[in-house]
């Protein structure tokens, strides 16, 4: 039930854009996105509920394609502070309220 993320790792220069994808084999109720810096707890970024919505704040946004069971996280004009590992978490429609985390995408932003 673990969602698959791509790419596994990406290196950006400050100001560049990146897209991280999350794909599940299950029909999804919602998708969460978290960022985790080395040695720290995952920090909640946003949640997308079924309905194909797109959300965002500042220069980080995400979309959720319910039909394809996919979500994408968009980081624009990246900053050094964006570095970390990004995880998507998925809740499926079986009624189980357990978040399954993806494999993670390590993002490194360099000056």
């Amino acid at each position, binding site marked *: 039930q673990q969602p698959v993320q791509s790419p596994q790792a990406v290196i950006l220069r400050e100001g560049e854009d990146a897209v991280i994808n999350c794909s599940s084999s299950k029909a999804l109720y919602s998708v969460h996105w978290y960022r985790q810096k080395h040695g720290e707890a*995952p920090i909640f970024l946003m949640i997308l509920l079924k309905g194909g919505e797109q959300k965002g704040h500042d220069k980080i946004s995400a979309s959720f394609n319910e039909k394809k069971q996919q979500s994408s996280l968009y980081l624009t004009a990246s900053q050094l502070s964006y570095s970390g590992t990004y*995880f998507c978490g998925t809740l499926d429609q079986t009624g189980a309220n*357990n978040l399954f985390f993806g494999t993670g995408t390590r993002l490194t932003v360099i000056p």
Partner: protein
Amino acid sequence: EAGVAQSPRYKIIEKRQSVAFWCNPISGHATLYWYQQILGQGPKLLIQFQNNGVVDDSQLPKDRFSAERLKGVDSTLKIQPAKLEDSAVYLCASTENRGAAGYTFGSGTRLTVV
């Protein structure tokens, strides 16, 4: 608001010893989770509580792991006896609304079994 509190921050034990972790969730959050995160991987759910009741412990290795949440607030996770493969970070998280709100994670306990 105060975050999710966990202790200890680090723990080193020998295999076959026992260890316990403590978690205090955000006040008012009825749902509490324990996750195990092995280095380089995403967090893996061990157990979910709703108030003081267990909602899902299907992925908890019950022969050695146990958890409780007395009075629906604090929670403890115990491993007895520990194995080398239990070395990981144990994260506690809470949420105010299962399924429709983000999770707030504690800083975790880094367990090393030698």
